[in-house]
């Protein structure tokens, strides 16, 4: 739920209760004001009545004016002075129902006689007051609802705009990209503060990230010279006469490890460089031609393993890419297709306008294929499992979709690249 919607819900609840309260108060206040007003009128009527009665001889017992009623009752006994104003219900013959009146009831002594006097005035019915009031409240509530709706829309477009700008920038942000994220000034304190804190946080993360990258890069770089020393010493030692078999074995194992370590270093260094976007220049690359040249390099390996290569060029395919990365990408894929192939196996390469497929025969992989592109997930102990993570990284950077499929019955491994 959006913050603004949530806020609106609460607002509406508050509005609702406020309106109900206002309605009820209004109802009572109106009633009170009307009665006060009527009281005044009735007092005035009383004054007029007394004045009129003291002048004239006859006493008209019953008078019915358009808006009020006067009713006089002679009392046989003497009455003490009395006065009361209240509401009273009186049955109306015409309308056949009780009507509410405001009435002043007082006693008066006129020329030795005592009278009960009543002056009444028809009140507005409570229901006829409550009805319109209820409609008014409902109308007001609806009006608020509509206003709130448009207000919210306006607010979320205007006021929350910087927030959504920040959000979309953060969503698109990639740590690996070198350009710093710029969060604009918003004129809203909260958002400015948020942007500022985000900026600081991201700079810190970025700084740490680059330190780590630099460290990896430097380490892999700095390790090469000591490795070169070790390798050269082993090589010199190898030249010694009279080495025993076991000594040769040790040297051989050391040499293999140095070799492995330097390959690991190379691959890690390359990965870091790709991640750091250090391959800038783009060139038009004829993919089919590149594949052919790579296959040519591997000709003797293909021959030794007796692998048959079937190339299909359905459409010509040219992509804009860094030539070094394109080279590494295709090289690694073809390398894998040969490496994980079987003797007398096959490789089928298919080039279409939107991508390429490289399929090869081979035994089922022992590793979880969902981890295939992850670093250090390896099919055998000889490799580091960096080849495909390099491939994946190159694909990521160049907006290429890569997927792997294994058809068990036919023992086919298929790598599909889709160029977007």
């Amino acid at each position, binding site marked *: 739920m959006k913050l603004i919607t949530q806020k609106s819900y609460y607002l509406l609840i508050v509005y609702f209760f406020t309106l109900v309260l206002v309605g009820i108060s209004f109802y009572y206040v109106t009633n009170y004001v009307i009665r006060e007003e009527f009281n005044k009128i009735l007092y005035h009527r009383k004054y007029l009545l007394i004045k009129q009665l003291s002048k004239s001889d006859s006493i008209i017992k019953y008078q019915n004016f358009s808006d009020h009623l006067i009713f006089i009752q002679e009392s046989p006994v003497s009455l003490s002075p009395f006065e009361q104003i209240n509401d009273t219900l009186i049955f109306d013959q015409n309308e056949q129902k009780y009507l509410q009146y405001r009435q002043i009831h007082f006693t008066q002594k006129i020329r030795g006689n005592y009278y009960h006097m009543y002056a009444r005035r028809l009140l507005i019915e409570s229901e006829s007051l409550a009805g319109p009031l209820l409609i008014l409240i409902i109308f007001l509530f609806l009006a608020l609802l509509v206003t709130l709706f448009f207000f919210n829309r306006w607010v979320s477009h205007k006021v929350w705009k910087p927030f959504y700008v920040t959000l979309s920038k953060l969503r698109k942000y990639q740590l690996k990209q070198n350009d710093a994220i710029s969060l604009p000034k918003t004129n809203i304190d909260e958002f400015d503060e948020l942007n500022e804190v985000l900026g600081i946080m991201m700079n810190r993360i970025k700084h740490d990230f680059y330190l780590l990258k630099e460290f990896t890069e430097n380490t892999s*770089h*700095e390790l*090469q*010279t000591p*490795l*070169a*020393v*070790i*390798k*050269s*010493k082993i*090589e*010199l030692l*190898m*030249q010694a006469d009279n080495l025993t*078999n076991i000594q*040769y*074995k040790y*040297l*051989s194992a050391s*040499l*293999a490890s*140095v*070799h492995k370590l*330097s*390959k690991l270093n*190379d691959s890690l*260094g*390359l990965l870091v*460089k790709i991640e750091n976007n250090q391959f800038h220049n783009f060139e038009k690359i004829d993919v089919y031609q590149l594949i052919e040249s790579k296959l040519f390099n*591997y000709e*003797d*390996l293909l021959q*030794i*393993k007796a692998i048959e290569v079937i190339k299909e060029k359905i459409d010509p395919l040219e992509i804009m890419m860094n030539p*070094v990365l394109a*080279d590494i990408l295709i*090289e690694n894929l073809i*390398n894998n297709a*040969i*490496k994980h192939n079987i003797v007398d196996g096959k490789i089928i390469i298919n080039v279409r306008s939107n991508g390429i497929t490289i399929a090869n025969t081979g035994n089922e992989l022992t590793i979880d294929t969902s981890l295939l592109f992850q670093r250090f997930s390896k099919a*055998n102990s*000889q*490799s580091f499992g960096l080849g495909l993570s390099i491939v994946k990284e190159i694909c990521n950077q160049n907006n290429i979709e890569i997927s792997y499929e294994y058809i068990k019955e036919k023992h086919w491994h298929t790598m599909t690249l889709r160029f977007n």
Partner: protein
Amino acid sequence: MKILVIEDEEELLNSISNYLQEEQFHCEYALDLKNARFRLNRETFDCFIVDIGLPDGSGLELVKEIKKEQPESFIIIISAKSSTENKVEGLNIGADDYLTKPFDLSELNARVNSGLRRYKPVKKKHVEFNELKIKTDIYQVLVHDIEVSLTKKEYDLLLYFITNKNRVISKLAIIEHLWGGYQDSNESYGFLYAQIKNLRKKLSIAGCNDYIENINRIGYKFRAN
């Protein structure tokens, strides 16, 4: 043949000069740019082996200077930087070859020899060894003056062996030399055995002695005596 090695890691320097000296090269060395410039201005060398990361500057600067001062010499860069861009940069400013650390000394030796051959007259481009003769300018191998047809890999292998004759060469060094990037050790050993078998067969049919000696697990030696 005089070689100047410029490398700040002394132990590596020792290894290089130790290996190359055995090949009848006269090896001299400099540990930094300053020293290298000093030597450069006083003596001429046939070959320079230059490390890029030197304590007092980049070896690339030195390569430029060498190219200007002694354009006839052969320059090999040895560097820990393995990317294609670094290689291209090095070659563009005048280096003749680029070797990534850690390298095999046998590989360095092969590169030095191949480089030095490049500047020699055609006659001297021929590598001769007993009944074997390799005309490197036309990639031809002769046994008792009769041509033996070798594949590209077999030719490279033979030349590598002869260049590093009487040396134990590790299988890994040969694999690296022949196939470069292809890294799967188990398989590449198989490929290597196949190549060596074929080479031996072709040479022996042509009446050449079998000079290639298996050295227990670790590699081979092209035995000259």
